[in-house]
């Protein structure tokens, strides 16, 4: 900033603009790259889960597949269906992408300093800006002049609006712990050790983490909540009619959303980029830690998608209103009461978090045991050769 104002003689306003542009470019580049790589990773992971390879032709292990896809899509004709609302139809993909991208403003790619803007109402901003996507999807469904798309758009509107509530409710728990609405403060309220993460602080925050994760899956239209695009029911939902570049933008928004789910879960619940004391402030390590956790969450999201069947629309609503919302409320009240108690007996915080983490570890050990048995079962030879 100083460099720009002093040496280049810019006014402060223009210097700000330049810096803004640079930051935006960096964030957008990271986002685009990540969504591309996610689309590749999804196909590879899905392939391996289904005893196939997935894309492995373009580039080493097929990693350049997303570039090839993008090139192919850009070269395609941009079709606008007859009777479509042309203006809305054209503008919609960018609205979707914008909704997803704008979330990145308050999410850190690395440590607290690496946020585009550390708003003091960051969490509120995060909750509200994600709803722009729903307008985009609704508009896409409406303007395509296709009944399947319309149904997809409607489903999506109903779904995202109702899942906002449990998500927002579950976010109250980390807010309580941090005592602030700023994402930066939420990061600082967590330590680097797993039991210092918000997710494992108390049973209630673990519950909130659970609700938040499921809710954001639903908001990101991922299986088991992919009703707006439900392939076997609505063909491809709201984006049926899109082709060419516009479809590519939808595609990017969709996979970018997975990245965002990972990023937000990591930042809000899984300790973000926090490092042990002596490494504090190392920018590369904090980016690495952040990305590792994000990639892990993304893997879980993809893994869930290729495991579970899809909900029906009424069951989806049931899940939101009858199951997740009560859970989020329990988490919130439980956490409040817990904090009151902990105020009297400070030692209890440490103990509960370690107990919660140990319980989590035990579950994981059981899980790994199940994986081993299932792996053995799958490896029984067929003996056809």
């Amino acid at each position, binding site marked *: 900033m100083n460099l720009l104002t002093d040496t280049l003689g810019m006014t402060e306003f223009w210097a700000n603009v330049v810096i803004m542009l640079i930051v935006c470019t960096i964030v957008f580049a990271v986002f685009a790259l990540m969504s591309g790589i996610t689309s590749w990773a999804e196909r590879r992971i899905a392939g391996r889960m289904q005893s196939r390879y997935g894309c492995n032709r373009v580039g080493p292990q097929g990693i350049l597949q997303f570039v090839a896809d993008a090139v192919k899509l850009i070269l395609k004709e941009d079709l606008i269906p007859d009777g479509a609302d042309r203006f809305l139809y054209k503008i919609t993909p960018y609205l979707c992408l914008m909704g997803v991208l704008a979330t990145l403003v308050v999410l850190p790619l690395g440590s607290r300093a690496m946020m585009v803007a550390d708003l003091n109402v960051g969490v509120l901003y995060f909750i509200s800006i994600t709803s722009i996507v729903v307008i985009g999807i609704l508009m896409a469904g409406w303007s395509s002049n296709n009944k399947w798309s319309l149904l997809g758009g409607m489903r999506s509107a109903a779904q995202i609006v109702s899942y906002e509530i449990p998500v927002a409710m579950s976010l109250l728990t980390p807010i309580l712990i941090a005592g602030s609405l700023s994402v930066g403060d939420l990061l600082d309220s967590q330590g680097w050790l797993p039991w210092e993460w918000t997710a494992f602080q108390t049973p209630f925050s673990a519950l909130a983490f659970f609700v938040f994760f499921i809710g954001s899956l639903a908001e990101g239209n991922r299986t088991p909540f992919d009703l707006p695009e439900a392939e076997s029911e609505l063909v491809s939902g709201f984006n049926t009619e899109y082709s060419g570049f516009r479809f590519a933008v939808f595609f990017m928004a969709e996979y970018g959303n997975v990245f965002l789910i990972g990023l937000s879960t990591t930042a809000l619940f899984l300790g973000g980029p926090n490092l042990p004391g002596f490494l504090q402030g190392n920018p590369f390590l904090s980016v690495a830690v952040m990305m590792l956790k994000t990639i892990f969450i993304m893997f879980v999201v993809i893994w869930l998608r290729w*495991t579970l069947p899809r909900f029906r629309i009424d069951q989806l609503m049931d899940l939101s209103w009858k199951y997740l919302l009560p859970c989020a409320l329990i988490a919130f009240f439980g956490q409040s009461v817990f904090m009151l108690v902990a105020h009297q007996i400070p030692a209890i915080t440490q103990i509960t978090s370690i107990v919660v983490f140990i319980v989590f570890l035990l579950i994981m050990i059981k899980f790994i045991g*199940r994986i*081993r048995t*299932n792996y053995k079962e*799958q490896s029984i030879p*067929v003996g056809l050769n």
Partner: protein
Amino acid sequence: MNAYFNNIKNGIQTVFEGMSISLASFFVHPITIQYPEDDISSAEKLKETYKGQLGPMPENYRGILDVDLSICTACQLCVKACPIDCIVIDAVKCDKSKVQGTKSEKPAVKTRTCTRFDIHMGKCMFCALCTLACPTGAIVHTKVFEMNKYQLQDLVLSFVSEEEKEKAIKRDSELKVEAAAEKAAKAAKEAEKTEEEK
């Protein structure tokens, strides 16, 4: 109320189990064949790559048809057996071992030779009825299945070349001439006989 909690419990348990299964299959070796690179005809190679999971291409695989013209007797049984008439055979009478140069123990027998043996692989449905009907085993399925062609016409397999056809026709006419000569000789003989008798 009970149903409510049961739902949650079962939901979590089954999702847990499902995730362990899909992750387990994540570590299992894929079984798809990387087709043009991997040789699928040899059982040993497949065994190496796919750990005995996949069966090799069996010996009796029903690929495109092949005809061994040296033993085909042009009996037309395959034509009759084919439900969609994709085999066309024209034949002439000739001693084929002589024409085709094949060495047979037996002396050249007068028999029929194909002057045209076309199979339209574009129509064929690989039902094997022709091979089952063939009394000599001349028509067989091969293990070849790669037969993409640029033109439909290229899918018509002709087993008799022009040369052979000409040879056969020539031999046929020769034979006819011979037969005619023989007949004439015979007739002449007979005529002589009758004359003598007179």
